[in-house]
């Protein structure tokens, strides 16, 4: 809820009230603004169009974000200091101190001086504000599995927006606080973009070490060497260098908990970097999340191999 309040700070005045009205009726995961196109929010039941007074059914009745409004939002997300956030803008996302994740899309420009591409600050066509959540009990299914088996490395997969980051956050919190078998573990979290534990999130944790800002591969290597963690948590694997760093650290006795984008178990094996990781038996367990509008979130836990 705090994060949603923070989101209102970045939004234009005219969009705040209708979104607030909708948020009273459902949990908002994302707020999506597109230039001259309908404003919408993503809830657990799908996409909802936002009109002047709240939810509307027709595209024509929805509010449309203007170019200057998008520019203003980006400016606020950058703390009126775009020069500080050039790298993040180049990567296409900004993370606020409160943990909001803003995905940006628009026109890129080629800078002759630096010989690199950079976003046109007047050419943003869309902003996706993702609201981070701490759901107590998001990791219940996996913790339950561990209670009946043993703590082991797990790869969590789901399509985007199904709750992988929320699950990892809850796992990090509970394992580091001693919620599992009443023993607190030394947990190292590789949080490259401060998505898991944002600066001012106020998420309370126990024996948790956080490495942020570094590329995952380098951070994994450092965490293993320097922090001596019992559990290492890493969000969104997918690149070869990340998976290779994990493979090389996988025989060190550390429990790895990581996540990856995939619709199904079969889809995991279709991604060559992840296939390599799974074939190397870096994970013992796969946990698939499915977000269903009627059933809610369901977790499918199965052993690898």
């Amino acid at each position: 809820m705090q994060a949603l309040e923070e989101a209102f700070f970045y939004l234009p005045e005219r969009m705040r009230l209708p979104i607030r009205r909708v948020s009273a009726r459902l949990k908002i995961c994302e707020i999506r603004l597109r230039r001259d196109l309908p404003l919408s929010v993503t809830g657990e039941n799908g996409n909802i169009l936002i009109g002047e007074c709240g939810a509307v059914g027709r595209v024509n009745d929805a509010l449309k974000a203007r170019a200057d409004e998008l520019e203003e939002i980006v400016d606020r997300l950058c703390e009126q200091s775009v020069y500080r956030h050039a790298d993040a803008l180049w990567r296409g996302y900004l993370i606020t101190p409160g943990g909001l994740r803003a995905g940006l899309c628009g026109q890129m420009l080629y800078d002759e001086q630096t010989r690199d591409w950079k976003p046109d600050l007047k050419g943003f066509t869309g902003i996706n504000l993702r609201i981070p959540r701490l759901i107590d009990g998001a990791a219940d299914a996996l913790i339950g599995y561990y209670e009946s088996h043993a703590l082991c490395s797990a790869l969590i997969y789901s399509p985007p927006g199904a709750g992988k980051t929320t699950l990892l956050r809850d796992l990090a919190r509970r394992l580091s606080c001693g919620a599992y078998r009443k023993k607190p573990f030394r947990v190292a979290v590789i949080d490259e973009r401060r998505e898991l534990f944002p600066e001012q999130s106020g998420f309370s944790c126990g024996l948790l070490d956080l490495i942020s800002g570094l590329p995952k591969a380098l951070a994994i290597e450092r965490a293993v060497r320097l922090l001596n963690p019992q559990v290492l948590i890493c969000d969104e694997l997918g690149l070869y260098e990340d998976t290779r760093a994990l493979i090389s650290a996988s025989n060190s006795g550390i429990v790895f908990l990581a996540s990856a984008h995939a619709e199904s178990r079969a889809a995991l094996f279709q991604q060559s970097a992840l296939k390599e990781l799974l074939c190397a038996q870096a994970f013992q367990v796969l946990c698939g999340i499915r977000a269903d509008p009627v059933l809610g979130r369901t977790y499918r836990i199965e052993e690898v191999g």
Partner: protein
Amino acid sequence: MRVFGLILITFAPALFGWMRAYRESKRPEVLLAFARLIEQIRFEISTFSTRQSALYDHFENPVLEQNGFLAALRSASREQSDAALYSALEAQKEKLDLDAESYRVLAEYARTLGRGYLSDELERAKKTETFLSKRADLIKEDAHKRARLYRSAGFLFGASAFLLFC
């Protein structure tokens, strides 16, 4: 009472002329102070990549302190997150008494501060700073002449009034 009135009539124009002359002579100093402020902003951005709300924390300047601009700037910076420099300029426009061209350039810089990439920010800061310094040099001579004129005119009016009423 008559003597008091005579003194008032004699000295008031001279005092007015002297005050105008003082204000004229201060103009280049104010421009140079703004150039110094922009230089500090450029330094903060290029060296520490300081966020806009903290850009002015370490800046001190007697001229801008004296005319109340720095106090307005710091208060705007604390109260609102965006365009503090622009707001302070707008609020102090009358007091600053800048010429129209200098104010336009300065306001344009303040309005767009923080809205560009590092290289653009530094370039704009450098350009504005150079403009203000050159402008200060240009009006220095002019300001001296005008200050002299106001002082002389004030004295003449005072003297004429004295002769007229004596």
